[in-house]
């Protein structure tokens, strides 16, 4: 039988988190406001510094304490949903997992909406183009079996499975998409995440339509538009490597061209 002590009266939250507010200096934060439609301008805020503080916390603090109209997006707060990406000092980052210390320069941070996507308002962008391209790259499973059939045995060590698994943990945060200059320069370019998804599927033994995938990535704005500039791989917060995935697609399409089959 469990024995629990009685509540000791008046034990509320410790003072230490709050103490930091008064002791600590502030951070100067520049936030890009507005949208393409309404015009964008930078606005400066002073935000108190805390011990454990992410860039998302900084943005939230502004909305909750200074400017209730500031718009941004987040959901999971732990790097799983890929909703909170923004440009931080010119670098695309997942803000819920970016500690302020990592990006602070002279007590300043510069925050802007994610690059290469239409800005809806302030720090929230329209992600539809990113997902439209995901679909356009045939970024979805083409079934070989139905729900009444058993789950196929697949050797996890098989080479193609390893390749497929390498790119599978993408959280579609669009950070690579924002980092890539080819995306910036070519509105048709499918972009690193969508192409990486296509490569993952191409290597999936369960996928029924490998040649449809190669067709989808061989057209205008397909994998051949990539210049291997590698910003995708450099900035992916999950350490994925779209650059190599896209190279894989180029190799596969070339092999098919020389009669190597899909």
């Amino acid at each position, binding site marked *: 039988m469990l024995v629990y002590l009685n509540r000791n009266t008046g034990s509320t939250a410790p003072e230490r988190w709050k103490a930091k507010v008064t002791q600590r200096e502030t951070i100067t934060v520049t936030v890009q406001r507005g949208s393409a439609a309404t015009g964008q301008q930078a606005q400066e805020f002073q935000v108190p510094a805390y011990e454990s503080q992410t860039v998302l916390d900084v943005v939230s603090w502004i909305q909750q304490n200074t400017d209730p109209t500031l718009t941004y997006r987040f959901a999971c707060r732990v790097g799983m949903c890929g909703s909170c990406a923004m440009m931080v000092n010119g670098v695309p980052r997942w803000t819920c997992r970016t500690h302020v210390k990592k990006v602070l320069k002279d007590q300043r941070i*510069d925050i802007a909406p994610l690059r290469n996507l239409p800005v809806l308002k302030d720090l929230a962008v329209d992600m539809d183009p990113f997902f439209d391209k995901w679909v356009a790259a045939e970024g979805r499973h083409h079934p070989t079996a139905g729900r009444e059939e058993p789950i196929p045995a697949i050797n996890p060590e098989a080479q193609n499975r390893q390749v497929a698994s390498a790119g599978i943990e993408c959280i579609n945060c669009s950070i690579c998409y924002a*980092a890539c200059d080819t995306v910036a320069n070519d509105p048709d370019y499918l972009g690193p995440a969508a192409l990486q998804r296509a490569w993952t599927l191409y290597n999936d033994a369960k996928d029924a339509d490998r040649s449809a995938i190669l067709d989808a990535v061989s057209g205008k704005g397909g994998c051949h538009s990539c*210049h*291997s*500039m*590698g*910003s995708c791989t*450099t900035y992916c917060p999950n350490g994925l490597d779209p650059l190599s995935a896209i190279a894989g697609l*180029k190799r596969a399409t070339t092999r098919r061209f020389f009669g190597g089959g899909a």
Partner: protein
Amino acid sequence: MSRVARAHPLWLAYILHRLSGLLLALFLPFHFLVLSLALHNAARLDSFLTLAEIPVIKLSETALVFLLAVHMFGGLRLMALEWLPWSGAQKTWAASATAGAFFLSFLFLMRAI
């Protein structure tokens, strides 16, 4: 608007490849024109070629060879990257390509002088 940060080796390799390709393409018509002169007037070509002795011209010739070398090695690097089974040693590729280019153009410079 805030600046976009992108100074990492692969991006530098990309921009180097693009600028060298662009400059080479701009130089090419000029190069062809000079050679065409040979058809009508070997002497004019000659007098042009003696310009190559002038240091400034010499330097820019060297630069061109450098560009060609950089671009070629960069291009070969790209094709290796795309077509050979992926090795993972990206940055080494980029670096060695540039190094090779430097070596070649240096060789050229030394020989020329």
